[in-house]
């Protein structure tokens, strides 16, 4: 790994705005590689899975790109993963949105936001930390970040304590999770101004400290 600029693969499966996430990661010092197939992960030190939209079609596209098993292996190997929005929801076992079976790397499901005054939940909202974590270094405890979604992951069983932050829109939902190097955020750091860039910079540091690829 180039310690100055770790390589972060951004999974490109036709589900969302990769332009912003690519620019934002480059801005915080990462070397960005778009991964549209399994080979795209070969040289990477960290993995970002972005995405907006429904879980079912997204899993279909990941499958056609032959990325499902490589992503599972990546997480099983304990390597740094940041899921953004749908990229967080896909970590759970299933989604209520269309009944899709998702990656199953975390216990729990993605559920529709309960009691929401408006859906989709679009705009800046407060992210309240449940515990300290280096991903949020330098951010206020109740920082405002930018959201665009109607569903959110709800961890349970052994992963109930993976909750890192919560947000309120009608009711409280999980807006960030962490289980070791497996990280996920429901908001869009690439669209959340300086605070979002700071979070991506923190992820890049986590990737840097992970020491890169296993032999």
């Amino acid at each position, binding site marked *: 790994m180039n310690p100055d600029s770790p390589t972060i693969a951004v999974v490109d499966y036709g589900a969302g705005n990769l*332009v*912003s996430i690519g*620019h934002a990661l480059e801005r915080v010092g990462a070397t960005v590689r778009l991964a549209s197939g399994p080979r795209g992960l070969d040289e990477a030190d960290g993995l970002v899975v972005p995405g907006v939209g429904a879980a079912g079609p997204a899993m279909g596209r990941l499958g056609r790109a032959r990325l499902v098993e490589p992503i599972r292996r990546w997480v099983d190997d304990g390597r740094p993963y940041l899921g953004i929005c749908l990229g967080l929801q896909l970590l759970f076992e299933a989604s209520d949105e269309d009944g899709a079976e998702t990656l199953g790397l975390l216990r729990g499901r993605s559920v529709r936001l309960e009691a929401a005054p408006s859906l*989709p939940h679009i705009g800046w909202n407060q992210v309240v930390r449940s515990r300290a974590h280096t991903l949020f270094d330098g951010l206020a405890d109740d920082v405002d970040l930018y959201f*665009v979604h109607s569903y959110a992951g709800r961890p349970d069983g052994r992963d109930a304590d993976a909750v890192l932050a919560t947000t309120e829109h009608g009711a409280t939902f999980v807006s960030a999770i962490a289980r070791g190097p497996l990280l996920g955020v429901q908001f869009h750091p690439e669209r*959340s101004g*300086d605070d979002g860039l700071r979070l991506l*910079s923190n992820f890049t540091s986590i990737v840097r400290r992970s020491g890169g690829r296993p032999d």
Partner: protein
Amino acid sequence: MLRIRVIPCLDVAGGRVVKGTRFVDLTDEGDPPELAGRYAEEGADELVFLDISAAPEGRGTLLDIVERTARRAFIPLTVGGGVRSAAEMRAVLRAGADKVALNTAAVADPVLISRCARRFGRQAVVVAIDARRRPAAGADAARASAAGAPAAWQVVVRGGRDATGLDAVAWAERAAALGAGELLVTSIDRDGTRSGYDTELLRAITARVGIPVIASGGAADPADCVAAVLEGGAGAVLAASMFHRRIHSIDDVKQALAAAGLPVRATNAPAVAGDLAAAMP
């Protein structure tokens, strides 16, 4: 709780930011990506680009501006002006925009709203409504409209030049039902006049739709922005010359909103921004 958004609007023509009165008499106000970057640093919650020339030959220039902006302003960007099809919308999104505002093309073909919402998600579809009060309408306009009298506001298109006869409130409801994620409501009577938003127009629409409404046209000072939210029910306020000419800052508006008890996103402390810049190559 969602924050009230403060949105600088950059009217773009021929690759420059311009601002006119009632869509004419344009004056040059700067380079779009540069202004966008400045506003992002100053705490803008989103940015809107409106290509007011919207000439087909200017498309390449607009996409280039969007791309350069996406490299330096890491906040949501909406682009409007002359987008006529899902394919054109895709090109703008691929250049780095998060949302596209549909206006004249949606009036001509309302199903375009549904097509774009299905393809890109409703969060990416903003319907821009330019409304003008009917000549007879006065202070009693809202009451007359509620009482079933002829609609007080009609939709105008092509940059305010053509009247459609369409009732602006009914069109807002239809656009929401067809899949618009939010509405950008501009009072053409007030646009560029610095006489305040048309809060009656805003209230007439926000009372009927469940999606966020962005107030536009006429903002002169922070008090107008507070009125757009408290009286008009808007979820976001958009302004151009007030910010471009540095008459008031984004922070001025946020402080006024906060003082009125409205939730706003804290503007970054300069120390944090400077520290962050230093940490980046």
